[in-house]
């Protein structure tokens, strides 16, 4: 066995028995999910196997830490139609992330050192919700640059564009940071427009990568 294989084997830690409270919490979560599935099945009645399949998917997604609901996905099919224009942004910039363009009718809803939310004017949803928005952030400190998807050029370097659930994600390096731009599909930006938006993003020293 090589030294590397020995080190890998040493990563395995002995499994420790869970406490009673942990076991009960797992069972409670599982029962709640099963109850929710039963309730939705009853509500949808004889809608057929297709509906049951969709419900099962919804229940599973609802128990994942960050999964969108099936309704979110269904209502936001990917669009390449370019239904919206990008316009020059002339308003006040936020610390952390600055933009040169925004989709027409969108504003900088708010920002933290970790992300910038670009949302339709009048959107009063929490800054913590990214549904229906264009969001700029740095890749998490715990994750690596994901070079999968359609290759594009952003800031003169390689970027990668892919669809994940109800959003498209553009990941690129600006030479200093790995930047992630996520656009909810219902905004209607084309791939080229998403790249154009990213080319107008400037990450300042106030931006921070999240952890986890």
């Amino acid at each position, binding site marked *: 066995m090589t030294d590397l294989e020995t080190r890998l*084997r040493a990563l395995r830690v002995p499994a420790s028995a869970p406490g009673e409270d942990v076991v009960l919490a797992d069972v409670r979560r599982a029962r709640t999910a099963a109850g929710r599935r039963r309730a939705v099945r009853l509500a949808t009645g004889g809608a057929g196997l297709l509906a049951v399949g969709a419900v099962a998917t919804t229940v599973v997604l609802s128990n994942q830490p960050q999964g969108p609901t099936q309704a979110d996905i269904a209502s936001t099919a990917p669009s390449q139609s370019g239904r919206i224009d990008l316009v020059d942004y002339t308003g006040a910039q936020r610390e952390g992330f600055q933009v040169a363009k925004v989709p027409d009718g969108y504003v900088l809803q708010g920002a933290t050192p970790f992300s910038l939310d670009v949302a339709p004017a009048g959107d009063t949803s929490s800054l913590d919700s990214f549904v229906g928005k264009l969001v700029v952030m740095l890749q998490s400190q715990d994750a690596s640059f994901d070079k999968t998807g359609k290759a594009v050029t952003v800031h003169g370097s390689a970027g990668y564009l892919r669809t994940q659930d109800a959003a498209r994600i553009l990941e690129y390096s600006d030479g200093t940071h790995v930047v992630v731009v996520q656009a909810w599909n219902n905004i209607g930006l084309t791939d080229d427009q998403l790249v154009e938006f990213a080319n107008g993003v400037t990450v300042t020293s106030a931006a921070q990568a999240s952890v986890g």
Partner: protein
Amino acid sequence: MSHQSEFEVFVRGHRGEMVATAAALTAGDRHLAEDLTQSALVRLYLAWGRARGPHAPAYARRVLVNCFLDHRRRAWVSRERSMHSVPDAPAVELADDPELFAALRELPPRMRAAVVLRHVEDRSVEDVADALGCSVGTVKSQTARGLAKLRAQLKDAALQGGNHD
């Protein structure tokens, strides 16, 4: 024994093992390991009619690996995980080899899962293929390429001042 009692017994007997596997899959991310284990147990319960019995541990392993791969594919829906520092760590034990965890983090998800199940968990090639839903040949090529990448990563780290290898 009722459906729920059986599941409870399974959780008591196998949760620790699932958390340990998740900790290796996530390359040492305690919080994500706990999240993935909880999600996998929910999915397992929803499929308990099929999963119960002697093959339940293998079924749970498949579900856990899928949760890990799904997590890596998912879009950010909210900023739940964006925070300046990690909150109180859940009770997930970790081996003390940050350099190797960092190298594991650089592997693509499926390759990382293959390496972890084969070389951290010491599963057979057939078991790994079952967990990943791929062929034995794919497992062999993924693990070989994964080990080569890890060696290259660790060599780079050593050249930059690491002290392993």
